[in-house]
């Protein structure tokens, strides 16, 4: 059965309603993901004392590096915002362009995080060194995994926009992905201020 068989009015109405359902559902999903991060933050805070005689945050964290990561992620949020604006204006090429920039910034962030992690592991400060480091790697790594999934989703969006244009379902996905991306930004600000800043200061 193809689209042609469906009466256009009914179909459009159903699509519109579904898009609103999904937007609402996505907000709730983000809240559940927020619960996951909240628990990981709590676990981290509880475990900062569990260094087991190993390195502490002050020994390991490099604020300059973290500042770089923060900049990449913040700017990527802004570029995603540009993509959303372009989508509202129906400018497909601009959307594609901004999304590519966003994905590139995201990749930069993930690479920087990977460098930080591998550097720590090379110094013998891997996640199996102490409870503190387990909590650090898991919290920051979970965020990094989210960013990676976000990048994958951006790639899928690029394909969909290129192939189908900014149809209502595609545009709605872009909107939800935007929520996700900005959400990760907020989580990162939490990580910056709860993990890195107190760790160094």
């Amino acid at each position, binding site marked *: *059965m*193809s689209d042609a068989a469906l009466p256009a009015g*009914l179909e459009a109405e159903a699509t519109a309603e579904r898009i609103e359902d999904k937007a609402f559902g996505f907000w709730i999903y983000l809240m*559940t993901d927020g619960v996951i991060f909240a628990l990981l933050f709590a676990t981290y805070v509880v475990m900062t004392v569990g260094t087991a005689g190993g390195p502490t945050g002050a020994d390991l964290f490099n604020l300059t590096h973290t500042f770089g990561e923060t900049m990449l992620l913040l700017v990527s949020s802004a570029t995603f915002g540009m993509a959303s604006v372009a989508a509202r204006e129906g400018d497909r090429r601009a959307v594609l362009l901004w999304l590519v920039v966003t994905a590139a910034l995201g990749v930069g962030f993930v690479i920087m995080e990977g460098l930080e992690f591998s550097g720590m592991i090379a110094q013998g400060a891997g996640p199996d060194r102490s409870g503190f480091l*387990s909590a650090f790697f898991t919290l920051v790594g979970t965020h990094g995994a989210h960013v990676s999934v976000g990048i994958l989703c951006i790639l899928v969006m690029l394909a969909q926009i290129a192939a189908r244009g900014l149809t209502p379902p595609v545009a709605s996905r872009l909107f939800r992905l935007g929520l996700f991306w900005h959400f990760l930004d907020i989580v990162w600000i939490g990580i910056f201020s709860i993990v890195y800043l107190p760790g160094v200061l």
Partner: protein
Amino acid sequence: MFGRLTIEALPLYSAIAMGGALIVVFGTLAVMAAITWMRAWGYLWREWFTSVDHKRIGAMYVILALIMLVRGFIDAIMMRTQQAIAVNSDGYLPPDHFDQIFSSHGTIMIFFMAMPFLTGLINLVMPQQIGARDVAFPYINAMSLWLTASGAALVMVSLVIGKFSTAGWTAYPPYSGIDYSPYVGVDYWVWAVLLSGIGSTLSGINFLVTIIRKRAPGMKLMFMPLFTWTTLCTSVLMAFAFPAVTVVGVLLELDRVAGMHFFTSGDGGNMMNFANLLWIWGHPEVYILILPAFGIYSHTVSTFSGRKLFGYTSLVWATCAIAILSFTVWLHHFFTMGSSANVNSAFGIATMIIAVPTGVKVYDWLFTLYRGRIRFTVPMLYTIAFIVTFVIGGVTGVLLAFPPADYLMHNSTFLVAHFHNMLIPGALFGYFAGLNYWFPKMFGFRLDERWGKRSFWCWVVGFYLAFMPLYMLGFMGMPRRMEHYDVAAWQPYLVVAFLGAVLILVGLTFTIVQIVVSVRRRAELRDPTGDPWNGRTLEWATASPPAPYNFAVIPTVTGRDAFWTMKADGTAWRRPARYEDILIPRNSAFGPLIGAIAFVLGFAAVWHMWWLVALSAVLAAIVVIIRSSNDDTDRLLPAAEVERIETAWLAEVAAAPRPVDEPARGVPSAALPGAAT
């Protein structure tokens, strides 16, 4: 290639374990052979497994729950047998095996019996109660079902390949850590819990969006049937509590496979954090299990006493209060684990406060029954048994909420008696009541009353025999999870408990007989009108089983008990002026596919076949991407087809005799089917 999976994983070490494995293997083969013999694979695949219809998904959830109930009960009666004989002897189960059994019993009963049962009933009923055509996200709904099924399959497979956890259903470290539990048991537990937990989180989100966004015009929040209200609260808990069990499972697994130190006893680990995270999920979880049953009872009391529900508003607020308070009491599960007296008192008081809204509910149900004309149907019997029994469990709960008392009772069979006293009447009996009440909506015919009543009496009397002695044993100092003991004075009580379990076995058998008998008598038990009990809420306004779209015309709601009002003003079973085209979501292999991949992923992770873990993760990602890129998911049911279905049903309604059960007092005659055309 096969990770740590070798031929040693087969249960060749013990005749009893081997027997269990053979039953699983041959049981599965027998079912598959029967399906092949009936040539039903195609039908099952097209009409059921790939279905995204909430009613079918609900029915499949319930079937899964019943299968797992049998499995969980076999575990239970094995433990009861062991404890009845193991005084000053080893009994027939070695410790390692006994420990697997209580772990799998608890895990199965909570995650794979109770959760699917309530999720199934919600799926079946809630969308109809709010006058909707489906849940908000039918494809995610199918995915939730199949994720739950894949978790259940992992637990079942652990009987045959490897062993299940011996760390209890709560898997406390450090015992569940790699040092003390190096083999696969705990990994099976973690993966089963993770997969089904993700399914439950998604179900919670799905139901929440459905209730908030899909209600029929005019159905204000305070017009919603109570089961929908309790579903709303349960969904909030599912969505926001289940992430905690996901986190705790992942962290435990990271400790086990990546050598991390979240919960280890040295190296900076913190075991208390496990207890906190687990119970931040665990206490809301018991309300996830119980609130839907409260909703069911609210319908059965009013339907079968022919009265409108007493104290609707207070029931709604009590439900919301319980849902919120349920997040504030988790520490009562470990009063004895070193918190200060002030902290313990705060949590003890919070726990006692929950008894207040619960008590309000009990009075509301009692006042609904008061001066009603009660029909003693099977659901009603379960309701009455619940009210009486649950109050006993509630009282012992308040007792345990008192930290000094908990110091004495903690970890004893008193606790085992207490939580079974909450969960069996407060959850399982509710689901049984719901099953008997809504079964016609699932399959179009009622369940046999005679066998239902027989089964009911065995369950209730069996429950008292099986669990009241455990209160005594708790006072006598018997700890839980005992494989054998040397206090002869305990044995008589354990023998009584065993006899109770035997009676429950008879009850469970009768439940199965009831279903078989009803299938065979289905023509006689047919529910032609869709309203077999003279019901009050909108789910009775549809056919039994409902058409794929539930309502040909979405009803407009003007108050509570919407269907009752429709029957009273003669607008029920009305033919609309004209039928319209309806879009319904098309079936899809997505759900079963994701479930299968998740199962392989979990199994591979348990056995450390990392390449297969990676492969299935990639496959899962591809399947999800393909599915979510699909914008063309609807199929059209043309108005003519809708008209054909509806006309046939309305003709049946017109021809139907009066409802089987006597209608309640004061029903205007227009409410009777037949008078409505």
